[in-house]
Every structure is written in structure tokens, then in C-alpha cells.
């Protein structure tokens, strides 16, 4: 490995080095300094990816390259990891989650996410997405005090392992049919075309699990409810964007087959309709956000379906926006939760007055998720439906717009709870004082939501370069 190679893949090296450093130095340092090391390293990985100019520099490492896509995805992943680490320090102290393994596991996740963004062959891609899942199995079940946490971890692990086996079988069939693991130029000869089609079908099923598309969505609400709130924030952003990027890398570089259009159509339709309708019935805010994430992944699948460059750029843009929105929503939940998780919607009554800053952030996140201008959520949805109509998926786009309108009901219900309801009976427990780290993280997420919504041209320029 030469110096040029090392410079090109520096975000990966930073994340891996920091994870090992945190694990090794953990016993000798204060919890606070460990958190700060982790935050600085995660942020540094993202900053490096932004400022590093030599996109597309030839790297001699097999299976890795720093492309325009990596330059877009790594900052998104690193922002998610940084904000998660900022949010989780005080949350973990309140909940008695001790030890340096939390920070180290978050950094290992970031490492795997960065590898995924740089992958150029199926082996590295598969190993990266599986490492991401592994780290999340651990993070979800780290809250030893709460019984739901371990249960959620086990459910996620079993579902994830089955999905991994299905994706692996799909990849093995694609390999058997085409004779190459490279992402570019996987061309199916006519004789083995049925094998490659079967492989693609299995990959779609496996990705549906990872993106939690209907009908493979059943694990999502349980896992979100059981996971600690900062982990749910990271899980709903990092792992979902990673799965979307995984699929995008497969689709964009190896000429998708026509056969996967129908399955993807049905998955997208089911997720948009069932996700939004089921969210209407939820009484727990984390379960509600889980169904909302299923619906949002349906929108992503709709954009992937078009197969056009516009659609792919809409997917990436929406991934970034969704990361900001969900980090704000789950971050506010984490910050408002004390020794007990604040789960039920009724526990948020009047919090807009007793905790004005965090209430406002939660309300902003809900408005953004509902897609109300001038937030970034509106812009993201606009690009998705625009790309879908341009790509000829008018029916599905109209269904999507209708379900998005329905979804405004349950998002605004949270805002109503925050500001316009009087508590029935006993008032919900007053939240503790917000800490500086939490306020910093929430401010960053809120600024991102508003900035992308009002002035999107910088991010659109980066996106244009990413897809060339």
C-alpha cells in the first residue's frame, strides 16, 4: 500500500484506528475523554472525505476506490456517527450503559460504512454491509438494564442472519452466472441468464429485509422500540442509507435486468401504503417512527425503480435528508428521555412549553418528515416524485403523494401533543436539563434540515459530481 493509497482511503483508516484506540485506551481514560476522542475521530473521517481533492485517484488496493460516490456518502455516514456519539454520551450515563465498547462499536460501524462507500467488488461490498449489521446487533442489545433491548437484539440478529444468507446466495448465483465479482461489467451471457435472474431476485428479497420494505418489515418496530434511542437514530439512518447504497451500487454499475422491475414495484407500493397506514395506529412514538421509516424506504424504492440518473440522485439526496431528519427526531427523544425511555405519545403532552428547545427540534423533525416546506423533507420528496414521474412511474408516484399526504396526520399529531394539549390527569414527568453535547447535536441536525431545504444547490452540486 503506497502513500497515495493510504491518503485516498484515510477515512477508513481513521475510523478503524480510532475504534482500536478507544478499545485499548478505554480502561485508562475517563468516559468523557473517550467520548470526545470518538466524536473527533468520526468527524475527522467525514471532513477528510469532503476536503480530499483527488477523487478517482487510482488505488492499487483490490476492491477499494475513492470515488465521487464515496465523497458524498462518507460525510453523511460520519455525520450520523458523530451526532450519535454526541447524543449517546449523556444518554448512556443516565441509563447506566457503561464501558468504552459503545463508542468503539459505533466507530467500527462507521469503518464498515466507509468501506461500503468505497467498495468496487461484490466481496468487499457484502462483507461491509454484513459488518454494519453485526455492529448494529451489538449496539441494539447493549442496554442491559432493559429487557426489550436484548430481545430486540435477538430478533434483529435472527432476521438479519437470514437476510444475509439470502443476499449471499443471490450474489453466489450472480457470480456463477457471470464469472466475475467486479461491480463493473458483470454481463450475463444468454446461456446463464436464468441463473443471474434468480440471483437478482434473491438479492432484492435480502435488500427488502435490510431496507425493511413490506412484507419484510416486521422486525423494524420491535427493534426500534427496544434499541436505545441514539442507537435507533443511527440504525434508522446509517443502516438504511447503507442498504440503499448497496443496492444502488449493484444497480448503477451492472445494468439491472428487466425482471426486477415488478418485484421492486410491489415492494415500493406495499411499503408506502402499509407503512403510512400502520403508523396512524401507533401509540408509541418510536414504533410510529419505525413505520414512518418503512414508508420512507418505500419512497426510496420508488426512486430506485426508475433506473434513471435522476432517480439515483434523488435516492442519494433523500438518504442525506432522511439522515438529518431522523437524527433530529430520535435525538430529541433521547434527550427528553430520563432514566426511563419516554415512549408513549401522551408522555409528550405540553413538552413544547416545559422544554422549548428540544420540543421545537422534535416539532421541526416531524414537519420535515411530513414533507412541509421550507424544510428539507419537502425538497427530498419533491425530487423523488419528480424523478418517478419523469421515469414513467406516474401511477405509483400519485399513490406515493396521496400516502405522503395521509402521513401528515400522524406527524402533526406529535406537534399537537407538544404544544396544544393540556395533560389529562397527572402531567408527564418534566424532562431533565438538556446538556451541551445534546444541544450541539440537535442544533447541527436542525440546521442541516433547514439549510438543505432553503439553499440546496451545494449538495446538488456534490451529488452531480458523485454520479458523474
Amino acid at each position, binding site marked *: 500500500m503506497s502513500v497515495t493509497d493510504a491518503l485516498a482511503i484515510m477515512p477508513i483508516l481513521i475510523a478503524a484506528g480510532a475504534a482500536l484506540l478507544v478499545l485499548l485506551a478505554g480502561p485508562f481514560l475517563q468516559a468523557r475523554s473517550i467520548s470526545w476522542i470518538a466524536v473527533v475521530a468520526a468527524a475527522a473521517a467525514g471532513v477528510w472525505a469532503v476536503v480530499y481533492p483527488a477523487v478517482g485517484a487510482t488505488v492499487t488496493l483490490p476492491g477499494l476506490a475513492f470515488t465521487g460516490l464515496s465523497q458524498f456518502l462518507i460525510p453523511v455516514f460520519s455525520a450520523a456517527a458523530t451526532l450519535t456519539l454526541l447524543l449517546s454520551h449523556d444518554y448512556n450515563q443516565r441509563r447506566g450503559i457503561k464501558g468504552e465498547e459503545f463508542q468503539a462499536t459505533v466507530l467500527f460501524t462507521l469503518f464498515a460504512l466507509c468501506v461500503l462507500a468505497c467498495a468496487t467488488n461484490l*466481496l468487499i461490498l457484502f*462483507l461491509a454491509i454484513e459488518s454494519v449489521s453485526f455492529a448494529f446487533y451489538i449496539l441494539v442489545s447493549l442496554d442491559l438494564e432493559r429487557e426489550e433491548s436484548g430481545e430486540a437484539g435477538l430478533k434483529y440478529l*435472527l432476521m438479519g442472519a*437470514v437476510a444475509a444468507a*439470502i443476499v449471499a*446466495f443471490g*450474489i453466489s448465483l450472480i457470480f*456463477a452466472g457471470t464469472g466475475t465479482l467486479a461491480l463493473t461489467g458483470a454481463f450475463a451471457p444468454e446461456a446463464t441468464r436464468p441463473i443471474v435472474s434468480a440471483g437478482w431476485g434473491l438479492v432484492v428479497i435480502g435488500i427488502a429485509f435490510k431496507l425493511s420494505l413490506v412484507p419484510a418489515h*416486521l422486525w423494524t418496530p420491535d427493534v426500534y422500540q427496544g434499541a436505545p434511542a441514539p442507537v435507533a437514530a443511527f440504525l434508522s439512518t446509517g443502516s438504511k442509507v447503507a442498504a440503499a447504497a448497496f443496492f444502488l451500487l449493484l444497480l448503477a454499475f451492472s445494468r439491472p435486468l428487466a425482471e426486477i422491475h415488478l418485484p421492486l414495484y410491489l415492494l415500493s407500493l406495499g411499503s408506502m401504503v402499509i407503512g403510512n397506514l400502520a403508523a396512524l395506529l401507533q401509540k408509541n412514538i418510536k*414504533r410510529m417512527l419505525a413505520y414512518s421509516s418503512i414508508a420512507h424506504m418505500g419512497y426510496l424504492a420508488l426512486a430506485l425503480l426508475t433506473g434513471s440518473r435522476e432517480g439515483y440522485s434523488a435516492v442519494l439526496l433523500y438518504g442525506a435528508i432522511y439522515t438529518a431528519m431522523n437524527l433530529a427526531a430520535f435525538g430529541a427523544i433521547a434527550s427528553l428521555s430520563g432514566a426511563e425511555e419516554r415512549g408513549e405519545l401522551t408522555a409528550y403532552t405540553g413538552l413544547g412549553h416545559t422544554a422549548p428547545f428540544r420540543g421545537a427540534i422534535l416539532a421541526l423533525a416531524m414537519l420535515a418528515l411530513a414533507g412541509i416546506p421550507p424544510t428539507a423533507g419537502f425538497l427530498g420528496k419533491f425530487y423523488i416524485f419528480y424523478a418517478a414521474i419523469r421515469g414513467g412511474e406516474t401511477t405509483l408516484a400519485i399513490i406515493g403523494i396521496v400516502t405522503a399526504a395521509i402521513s401528515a396526520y400522524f406527524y402533526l399529531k406529535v406537534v399537537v401533543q407538544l404544544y396544544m394539549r393540556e395533560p389529562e390527569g397527572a402531567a408527564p414527568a418534566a424532562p431533565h436539563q438538556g446538556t451541551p453535547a445534546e444541544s450541539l447535536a440537535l442544533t447541527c441536525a436542525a440546521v442541516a434540515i433547514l439549510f438543505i431545504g432553503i439553499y440546496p444547490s451545494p449538495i446538488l452540486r456534490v451529488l452531480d459530481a458523485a454520479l458523474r
Partner: protein
Amino acid sequence: MIIPFYHVLILASLLFGMGLACVVAWRTNVIMMLIGIEIMLNSVMLTFVEGSARWGIADGQLFALMLIALTSAEVSLALAMVVYLHRRKQSVNTDDYGSMNG
């Protein structure tokens, strides 16, 4: 003797189906589900090795080796979690892990 390409694929598909059936049918026992997942991944390795032999390149064998490492990591993680949950509830029956309605 060279075994035909399609015979190996059929064998692998059968193994994969059996593993999946094991996971679906024995949903009540975590250990049985893990065994089913293991069988599924073994059929994947078989396909990779066969693909390697067919095209005369080592990539598939490499993937199979990586999968062995991956499965052992997965199983160790799963078993650790099973032991941890077993201490809490004295059970490996998945029906006992239903505190969340879902």
C-alpha cells in the same frame, strides 16, 4: 469425474431450501434457527466453489473462505446473546421473547 454445473446448483438450491424451511418451521427454538441459517450459508459456499471451478478463477473460493469467517462471527455473537437472554429468562424458546407486540 467432473460433476455437471447444473447438478451442483440444484444440490445447492435444495440445501438452501432445506435450511430456509428449518428456520421457518422451527421458529420456536433459537438454536434450531441458527442451525438452519448455517445450512443456508453452507449451500452458498457450495455455489461459490462451483462457480470458481466453472470459470477457472479463485474469486469464488475466496468468497467462500470469507463466508466461513463471517458465519463463525455470526454464530458466536448469536450464541453469546442466547446465553445472555437464557440467564434472564431460562429459555431458548422464542415465544417467551414477546414483550413487545409485533
